[in-house]
């Protein structure tokens, strides 16, 4: 009975599922996340999977992880976990370092046979001692229990073994007091087309839960605090899906159909997957023959009058550079999504980094300014994808959205916006009188310096665009030196004026401080937590987190001038720090950098900021 168990009440708890990449850890983790979000917990996830699709079973290279933090005040998936589930010896070896002191490890002891230890390159026959693990270890015969639960199912051995992850999930559901009916509902929708597989998983889920119940004497259970969120309808969403949905919302708000030209690339492909499904909302998502065709088809679609997008990761952005330059020159709206990963070259395809900043800002020939924005969290991907579209259309420019693998794959609970929560996007249609008296030229500009954007087929608006420099007035090809300089400055000023149309920078934390922590994009959760932690320890630190990168918010200089010491924290060698320093040479900027393909740990930010402050 539960009342006999040792129940810990926690604000938030971190669980890490680890196993072979074929063990279904991502599925088990996702279901646990969704069930928790449904209970009113805040959630934040971090899938940490290998680049290899199926490395040899039981090997160190094939270990896949999924970390989730649930509870109250959750901004990140957590640095370390309270509970680690390791489905085999290799997973334990790769993941035990993520366990907090006092945490619990649950292992499938059936996967710690001599051969398993050998595959995971253990030197001795006692893996726990060898790894120096002092934590509470719960040895569960997951494999044999799963087999026993499904002895009468009629399923073959391979299909039975595929249910091991759900046994572990059942156990974790017991541990955290998660209702099984919600987990069953998720399993049902996952296996809707395979009733026998659903039945087997449902049986195993209950078996795992009951097993946990029966061994309660030896484990702590956790009661996790829930947040009182804003009323509304909620769903669990990852950053890539949020990005896709933000684009769809923008299409609804500007009245132009959404076109995606893309090419599969990790970790951005889920955006293509999601938009391919959204034919049910009229989206045309085309998988093209390469990255270049992805951006070029989008440029064609933009010229034809669609809201046009291409999605990619760093190597793909490199391939798209020339196309993006054409969109800069033709002054067409175009949204380019870069879900950043570790580089250079193929780099670390499944891991996160913020190393494409300079490529996004400057990676084209000639003077080719464009707008750059960066979402701060999985759910912010929705808002910033919408913003990228709004800026692209209203200012007639390509916009690069710098997401990353961490927030693209990570998920959070998200309140579905009401229909009127986002503004209308005003398409720059040619005024009727200009069409009527034929006085319109292709490079006529509005107050914000953006061109007009006729839909292909509009009578009276046939015009020619191209990559050659154009006369500022007539739009005809021009080699005139003075005209070229004028056009360069117009294109530059057009981007600068976007600053009038974006929110100012907001400060968090203890704003009455001397030290300002600065970040941008996907590191927000960690910086936010670190700031809270530092403030709680009595350190006076404020946080300025940038989501608008080019142009910067108008009050950036004013904000930076208020602080004696600015610490720019980012997952690269200091690109944003350099970018700020050259714009604000008087700012005293220090850096915290990490380039390991992994997100920051809150603790490392706290430690490094503390060190800087102590040196001050």
């Amino acid at each position, binding site marked *: 009975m539960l009342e006999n168990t040792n129940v810990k009440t926690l604000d938030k708890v971190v669980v890490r599922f680890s196993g072979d990449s074929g063990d279904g850890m991502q599925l088990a983790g996702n279901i646990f996340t969704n069930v928790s979000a449904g209970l009113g917990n805040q959630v934040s996830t971090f899938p940490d999977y290998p680049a290899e699709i199926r490395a040899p079973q039981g090997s160190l290279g094939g270990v896949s992880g999924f970390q989730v933090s649930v509870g109250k005040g959750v901004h990140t998936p957590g640095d370390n976990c309270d509970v680690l589930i390791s489905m085999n010896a290799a997973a334990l070896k790769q993941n035990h370092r993520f366990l907090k002191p006092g945490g619990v490890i649950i292992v499938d002891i059936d996967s710690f046979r001599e051969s398993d230890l050998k595959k995971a390159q253990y030197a001795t026959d006692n893996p726990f001692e060898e790894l120096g693990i002092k934590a509470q270890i719960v040895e569960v015969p997951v494999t044999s229990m799963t087999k026993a639960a499904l002895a009468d199912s009629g399923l073959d051995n391979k299909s039975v073994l595929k249910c091991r992850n759900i046994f572990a999930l059942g156990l974790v559901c017991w541990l955290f007091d998660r209702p099984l009916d919600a987990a069953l509902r998720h399993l049902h929708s996952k296996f809707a087309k395979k009733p026998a597989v659903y039945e087997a998983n449902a049986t195993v889920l209950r078996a795992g839960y009951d097993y946990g119940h029966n061994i309660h004497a030896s484990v702590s259970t956790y009661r996790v605090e829930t947040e009182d969120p804003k009323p509304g309808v909620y769903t669990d969403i990852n950053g890539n899906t949020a990005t896709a949905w933000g684009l769809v919302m923008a299409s609804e708000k500007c009245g132009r159909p959404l076109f995606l*030209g893309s090419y599969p690339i990790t970790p951005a492909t889920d955006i293509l997957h999601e938009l391919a499904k959204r034919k049910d909302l009229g989206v045309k998502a*085309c998988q093209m023959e390469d990255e*270049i065709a992805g951006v070029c088809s989008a440029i*064609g679609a933009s010229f034809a009058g*669609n809201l046009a997008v291409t999605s990619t990761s760093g190597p793909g952005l490199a391939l798209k550079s020339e196309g993006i330059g054409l969109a800069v020159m033709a002054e067409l709206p175009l949204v380019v999504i870069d879900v950043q990963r570790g580089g250079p070259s193929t780099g670390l395809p499944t891991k996160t980094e913020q190393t494409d900043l300079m490529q996004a800002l400057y990676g084209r020939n000639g003077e080719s300014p464009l707008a750059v924005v960066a979402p701060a969290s999985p759910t912010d991907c929705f808002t910033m994808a919408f913003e990228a579209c709004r800026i692209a259309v209203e200012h007639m420019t390509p916009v690069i959205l710098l997401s990353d693998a961490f927030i693209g794959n990570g998920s959070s609970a998200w309140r*579905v916006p009401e229909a009127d929560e986002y503004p209308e996007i005003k398409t720059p249609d040619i005024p009727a009188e200009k069409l009527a008296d034929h006085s319109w030229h292709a490079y006529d500009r509005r107050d914000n310096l953006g061109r007009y954007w006729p839909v*292909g087929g509009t009578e009276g608006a046939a015009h020619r665009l*191209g990559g050659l420099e154009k006369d500022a007035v007539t739009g005809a*090809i021009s080699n005139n030196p003075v005209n070229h300089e004028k056009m360069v400055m117009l294109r530059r000023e057009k981007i600068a004026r976007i600053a009038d149309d974006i929110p100012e920078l907001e400060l968090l934390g203890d704003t009455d401080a001397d030290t300002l922590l600065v970040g941008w994009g996907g590191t927000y959760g960690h910086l936010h937590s670190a700031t809270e932690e530092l403030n709680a320890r009595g350190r006076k630190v404020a946080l300025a987190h940038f989501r608008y990168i080019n142009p910067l918010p108008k009050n950036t200089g004013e904000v930076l001038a208020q602080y004696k010491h600015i610490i720019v924290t980012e997952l690269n060698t200091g690109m944003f720090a350099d970018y700020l320093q050259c714009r604000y040479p008087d700012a005293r900027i220090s850096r915290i950098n990490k380039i390991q393909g992994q997100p920051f740990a809150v603790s490392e930010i706290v430690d490094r900021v503390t060190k800087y402050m102590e040196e001050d």
Partner: protein
Amino acid sequence: MEEIHFTPADYKSDQAVRWCPGCGDHAILNTLQKAMATLGIAPHRTAVISGIGCSSRLPYYMNTYGFHTIHGRAAAIATGYKVANPEMTVWQISGDGDGLAIGGNHFIHAVRRNVDINIILFNNKIYGLTKGQYSPTSARGFVSKSSPYGTTEDPFIPAELVFGARGNFFARSIDVELATSQEVMVAAARHKGTSVVEILQNCVIFNNGIHNPITDREVRAERTITLRHGEKMLFGANKERGLVQDGFLLKAVTIGEDGYTIDDVLVHDAHTPTNFLHQQLAMMDGLGELPLALGVIRDVESPSYEEGVCRQVDEVRARKGFSSLRDMILAGDTWTVTD
């Protein structure tokens, strides 16, 4: 409804044409404007998209929607344009370098997808705008600035690429054959799906006379054959020669000689799905026994890409019936938080 007639002048922009005097491009531009007038599609219902190269300047001379893009990418840009706005008639203008070298990948994939665009491929077997380097259609051994000792590589034959990419429309003409050019451009536009029209074009500055062995007035009747669907495959000054089947191959014969009569001469069937004979016809080079084929060589109906995309969108929308993004999200896994 009042029928509106267009003249070639309706498709001309106010820009001065800047090609070299004597360049074959002038004739192709004029022919295209005539073909558009014949088709009767309004200039504002037409988009002309090009890459980079001499021929790719063409959109500036048209009074249509036009886009002079980047090197090699016209097919990808035209594909996006057509999918986004299927009501428009879309033309792509490319040269042999733009279309088959840097843009080779987009070219074959456009053809494979069968997106409804009309590709006019100006083939002058040279890079003109960069002043005279060999192109992917230059013959082995061709001497140019970048191959001073002759090339050591074999060329593409555009038709062969089109067939290799499972193309459904291929036609050929010569810049100076105005009537044939206009005829095949009209047929290309009327064909639903990717149409490729290769036009042998003379670069008067860097490769003058490259097509002369076939196109010279004195030899043209003997070295070319103009194919028309349903008509006998006849050529020669007095149509005294014809193509007959010889085993698996084609053979050129003189009617009345060696026992061949007009009844032996093949009748062109551009609409047969099997491309075996089309390919043989397209591969005749006019330099040996067999004449170079002009006219519409293959014109086979097949579902076009953008039609498929639009139909799928309509079907899925009708089936699922979501009115908005919010509607779609609310139909999935959600939970409600109340005050």
